[in-house]
């Protein structure tokens, strides 16, 4: 049994915290976000980490590294109010390009 964690902008994190995802965090700086993500990724109790688009945008490299190296936790980027994740932060894109030789739209 694994837990879910959320790293997002304060309004989104508060919403998830209220709805029952207790480990919902908001961060202020890029550094903080990266540190928190690595800390959560090291913790085996988490199966899924949901990252808000505004934060994911800043820590693309860290997300890619964790996705490439670890099976769990899985990291999913979600849109926040007004911010949709860009194509750049899809950690599977590079893998698929190499494996299939196609670009995923």
């Amino acid at each position, binding site marked *: *049994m694994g837990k879910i964690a959320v790293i997002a902008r304060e309004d989104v994190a508060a919403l998830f915290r209220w709805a029952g995802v207790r480990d919902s965090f908001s961060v202020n700086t890029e550094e903080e976000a990266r540190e928190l993500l690595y800390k959560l990724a090291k913790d085996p109790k988490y199966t899924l980490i949901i990252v808000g688009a505004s934060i994911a945008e800043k820590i693309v490299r860290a997300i890619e590294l964790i996705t490439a190296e670890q*099976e769990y936790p*899985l990291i999913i980027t979600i849109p926040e109010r007004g911010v949709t994740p860009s194509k750049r932060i899809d950690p*599977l894109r590079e893998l698929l390009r190499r494996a299939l030789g196609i670009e995923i739209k």
Partner: protein
Amino acid sequence: MAELGVRVTRMELFKLKKRLEVADRARQLLEEKRKILAMELMKYVDKIRELRENVNRSLADLYDALVDAEMLMGKSVVRGLLIPSADRFEIEESSRSTIGISIPVLKLKMTKGFMATNPYSFITTSTKLDEIAGKVDDVLISVVELAEAQATVKRLAEELDKVKRRVNALERIVIPKIQRRIKYIEMRLEEMEREDMFRLKRIKTCLERRRRTGV
């Protein structure tokens, strides 16, 4: 090209021919596996696109409901009501096997209902708030589905990469190397046969000369 360390014997030739057969068969099997994996992967890529749209849609719904609630009750009231509650989600991880590859399976479990963990007054709040809670559940369900599909794609793509590398190694290195050795041994054997032939002819003429001269 001289092949170093190759024993030029018929036995070695026989062994190499057997190895070539095995390598070629392995290449064919891996090639088939590669095709199946690529097909499976393409299917999942389409599925991910769909699931990502689901996540986006359910989140848009959630944010819309939040805006509605804020309009009805006031932003600060809603913010004030959003107090942290107890954890009520867990993910059960297991795995299944497709074409010999272990694929993760995730299942979202809601350990408690929303009302059990969030006792707030029904009189002072709008039903919109309950709606939001339900929508968060929808969001998490769709996010977990997406996570499972993404993890599957990752496993399949990694496997496909591995199979591709093996096919390439067989096709470009192992098989040509065996073929080169076979050719080399065959040529050397022919050469040896010719030498033998020549030697025999020489001996024959020598013997004939001796018989004629009577020495």
